[in-house]
């Protein structure tokens, strides 16, 4: 069984100018220990997909439909404990939420009791969880490394304290000494001198901040790490160092990772599977080598040949032309057809369906029977 199974996920943003179909019918799987690269241009819905998995979409956005099945959801629900929940409320104290989720009359709460007594079965769908349950998944089971290390750390707290907080949220009864031992150990794992735990973020360099963020995500031994553009703002040499550290940690802990980036060469360096997104749709999905060496979808092909290469003979860069569509009213049929060099008459009329090819799939009329 897959660790994470996303089925037909749809996330729309309801703005005054109309609904933006940011993520429209996306499906993919993630196995244990797999590194998935999610590539595409800005505005194609990469980040929205991952925020949807974390259930961190804020208004005006909404997850419309779909399933996000996580293998261990069941165990999270079974270990769900009202006392712990109250404890969390005391720490976080979101007054608004407190009122909304008065636990006793909550339907999901009653469901939980039924499930715990073995009376009712529930799916592994993360979208069915209550906010309090979801909070136990975030950070503990699925952790996220946010975009832009420069802004993701709180400037008025010491780095060590920020990492410490990630532990205490999930394990409030931990002993003081053990707590700090874990903080120091994780800092050492990502290659930061543990003494720097007392530093404020501005005292760290860009690469170190990024490492601190990775440490924060790793500290609870999560099953899945979602990294959103983890190396984009860094210089090449620092970038190479961070990537190398990430790769080593991934194999050391047998982590599953989703890596979002617009830079295909970063994906080529780290990932095993590759998913290409265009205008809210996943257009191609498959093993990295297959997709890279023999791209099937015209967009994948264009994207790969638009990247300048440093090795091999100098090749002419390919100009895709046009620009990404407006997601409020995307083009009819295949969303890539106005820019596609291989467009056929059918492309503008009918939406292509998923065609399964070599361990993955491609969504294009060229490959449909």
């Amino acid at each position: 069984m897959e660790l994470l199974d996303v089925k037909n996920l749809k996330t729309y943003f309801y703005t005054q100018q109309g609904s933006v179909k940011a993520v429209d019918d996306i499906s993919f799987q993630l196995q244990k220990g797999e590194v998935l690269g999610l590539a595409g241009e800005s505005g194609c819905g990469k980040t929205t997909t991952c925020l949807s998995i974390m259930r961190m979409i804020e208004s005006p956005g909404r997850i419309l439909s779909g399933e996000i099945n996580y293998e261990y959801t069941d165990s999270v629900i079974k270990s769900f404990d009202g006392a712990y929940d109250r404890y969390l409320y005391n720490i976080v104290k979101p007054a608004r939420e407190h009122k909304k989720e008065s636990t006793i009359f909550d339907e999901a709460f009653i469901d939980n009791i039924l499930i715990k007594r073995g009376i009712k079965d529930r799916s592994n769908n993360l979208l069915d969880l209550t906010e309090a349950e979801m909070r136990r998944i975030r950070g503990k089971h699925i952790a996220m490394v946010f975009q832009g290390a420069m802004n993701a750390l709180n400037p008025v707290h010491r780095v060590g304290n920020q990492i410490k907080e990630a532990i205490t949220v999930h394990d409030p009864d931990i002993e003081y000494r053990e707590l700090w031992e874990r903080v120091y150990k994780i800092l050492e794992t990502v290659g930061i001198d543990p003494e720097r735990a007392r530093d404020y973020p501005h005292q760290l360099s860009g690469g170190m901040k990024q490492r601190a963020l990775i440490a924060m995500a790793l500290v609870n031994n999560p099953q899945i790490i979602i990294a959103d553009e983890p190396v984009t703002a860094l210089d090449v040499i620092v970038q190479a160092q961070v990537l190398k550290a990430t790769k080593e940690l991934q194999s050391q802990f047998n982590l599953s990772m989703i890596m979002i980036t617009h830079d295909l060469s970063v994906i080529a360096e780290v990932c095993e599977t590759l998913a290409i997104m265009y205008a809210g749709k996943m257009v191609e999905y498959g093993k990295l080598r297959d997709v890279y060496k023999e791209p099937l979808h015209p967009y994948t092909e264009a994207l790969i040949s638009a990247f300048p290469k440093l090795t091999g003979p100098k090749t002419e860069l390919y100009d895709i032309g046009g620009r990404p569509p407006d997601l409020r009213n995307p083009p009819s049929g295949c969303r890539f057809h106005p820019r596609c060099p291989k467009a056929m008459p059918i492309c503008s009329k009918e939406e292509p369906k998923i065609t399964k090819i070599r361990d993955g799939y491609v969504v294009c009329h060229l490959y449909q029977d």
Partner: protein
Amino acid sequence: MSERDVVVEAKNLIKLFPVKSGIVRSVARKSTTIPIKETQGKTTYKTLKGDFVHAVDGVSFKIYKGETFGLVGESGCGKSTTGLLLLQLLDRTGGGIFFKDVETSEYTRAHLWMNTIINFSKFLIGRSSWNDVRKTFQHYSSQVRLFRKNIQIIFQNPYESLSPRFNVLDTVAEPLRLMHIVEDEREIEELVIKELEEVGLTPGTEFLDRYPHELSGGQRQRVGVARAFILDPEFVVADEPVSMLDVSIRVGVLKIMQALTRSRGTGFLFITHDLALARHMCDRIAVMYLGRIVEQGPTEELVHRPLHPYTKALIKAVPKADPDARRTEDLPIKGEVPSGINIPPGCRFQSRCPYSTEKCKEIDPKLELVKTDHLVACIRVKEINDLK
């Protein structure tokens, strides 16, 4: 060296930014001596007090007519500062910039007014005639204008470099109007349309009345390119022109810049942090580290056979766009670029260099010719690369 026309030449260019310090520290200020000018083999020195960031510290290069010259380096190495210095958008601390063999400090407004005041006072005490005053003023002001006409810049961020209150016509026509080259509005419009179509905004007439918020990122940057090229400049600086653009849009803008510089024979300084991009755009590349050029050479030569340890590391660090060519071995260099304040003597790269010796801490290497057109600043370059 080929006998082509040099458009812009930088000679030992220096730019120091003062570091502000408190009262206590300012008592024990250090002094720095830097060479300011070099005239007929004689070097003038100047001593400055206080701490400085050595943003650009002794950079020399030539850019020929019709050539694209790439300046590559990590952030904070001084590549953008160099570009701004060449355009006189920043005042240099020392060194010389020559635009077609004429020192550009003569093209500044300060120089113009100083000369006018000197002439005017001469006129007041009766040493020169009013006609002379007028003539020299006109000469210098036309020189300033000519210089400004011939150098242009394309900025990094198309979202900030276009005025939101100017439509495309006004933005692109502004250089024409400022330089009083064409006075007739109808003619200006025709020129603008022609230029817009040349940068791929077709049909040009449709874009004239649009404001920047109505354009996409790629279109904005094309407007930026049109604005830079409308006066047919002889030298253009592009400071990370595509780093804010998406991959699919980037290629179009790059191709337009390439076509324009080639067809018009413009000297082009392409500043970027991306070595792969520089390889595609440039004829020659210079790699900068902490305010110095460490290696300079023809593109393919530099990319495939780098000689300086820093360039080697930089090329190794670039992620390869090929799943079969994954990096397996460790990077030879560790850590990050040290601070540009109080740089120790000796080679600047010495603290991170895998080949560093005691000698490297003492000798500050000069940029020297190793092969044809290939300059390297490293005292051990021959040992490391087995060259004779």
